[in-house]
């Protein structure tokens, strides 16, 4: 088997365990989007156009309470800002690729694809030499496509099932659990831990603010506290 093909399949396989959190999450997104009054076509299109689960969730909730478009936009951007970190983190490994590859992999750069791709880059040979190209971007592509296809399909299933997924199954809780799984292992230094705790408590305190503005305030306060603790240390 050729190296690109082998990498593509490995990436696909490495992504599979993460899909058990993504499938219910995508279904619930589809269900909630319809419940919020979004047309089925728009709900499905959002999974392709935005392709970022947590911001889709929150946009849907805001749409359901008739929040202004600008508020939805700003909230979604704040929620997705963390992808800039992923972008910075994978950038050195993608520097030799042509623009087409960079654009494609940027589109596929979700929490779950990033987690798998960066681990693969870090655990394999430390090759950043453009004169010796390797095939590891195919691994990234495999992981990204596995997630992309799963997200589109599970959204479609959610839209199709609609109200038939009972709220009593509490499948929406998989979102919180997926985020817990992503953040908790990284909270091993004081500034990160402080950023997380302060942002969380602030979000609870400001929860009653309209349009989930508390989320934006909490995020800003959390990041500031992280920087402050880091500067003090």
């Amino acid at each position, binding site marked *: 088997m050729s190296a690109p093909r082998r990498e593509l399949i490995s990436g696909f396989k490495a992504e599979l*365990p993460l899909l*058990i*959190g993504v499938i219910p999450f995508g279904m619930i997104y589809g269900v909630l989007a319809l419940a919020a009054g979004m047309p089925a076509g*728009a709900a499905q299109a959002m999974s392709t*156009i*935005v*392709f*970022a689960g947590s*911001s889709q969730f*929150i*946009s849907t909730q805001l*749409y359901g309470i008739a929040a202004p478009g600008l508020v939805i*936009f700003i909230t*979604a*951007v704040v*929620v997705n*800002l963390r*992808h*800039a970190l*992923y*972008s910075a*983190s994978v*950038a*050195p490994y*993608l*520097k030799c690729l042509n623009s087409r590859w*960079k*654009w494609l*992999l*940027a589109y596929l*750069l979700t929490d779950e694809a990033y987690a798998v791709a960066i681990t693969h880059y870090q655990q394999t040979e430390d090759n950043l030499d453009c004169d010796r190209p390797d095939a590891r971007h195919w691994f990234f592509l495999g992981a990204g496509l596995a997630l992309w296809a799963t997200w589109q399909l599970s959204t479609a299933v959610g839209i199709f099932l609609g109200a038939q997924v009972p709220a009593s199954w*509490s499948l929406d*809780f998989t979102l*919180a*659990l*997926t985020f*817990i*799984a992503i*953040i*908790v*292992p*990284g*909270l091993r230094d004081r*500034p*990160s831990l402080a*950023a*997380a705790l302060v*942002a*969380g408590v602030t*979000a*609870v305190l400001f929860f009653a603010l309209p349009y989930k503005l*508390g*989320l934006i305030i*909490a*995020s800003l*306060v*959390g*990041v500031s*506290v*992280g920087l402050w603790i880091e500067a003090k240390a």
Partner: protein
Amino acid sequence: MNLWLTMIAIGLATFAIRLSFIYLFGKVEMPDLVKKALRYVPPAVLSAIVFPELLLPGGHFDLSFGNGRLIAGVLAAAVAWRTKSVVLTIVTGMAVLYILMALGL
């Protein structure tokens, strides 16, 4: 129409965020403060989403043993800390939640 415009704007912004450093690598040096601040964006944003999910189920503050989501979330966090496994974290959280629900909590 407004819905589609908002959606496309979010999509373009999200793509720009994801492409940002991949595209700019080697072309522009990012200010140190931005790089440092970015490190704290994931824990801050994700906690700001998770905490209300655990502490305000149904929109009402509930810091008690009757709050199944809080207990399930805390135990799932302990599993995430120990194992770093996404699968085990989700399975633990959902299992605990279902058990507590079955017990009538």
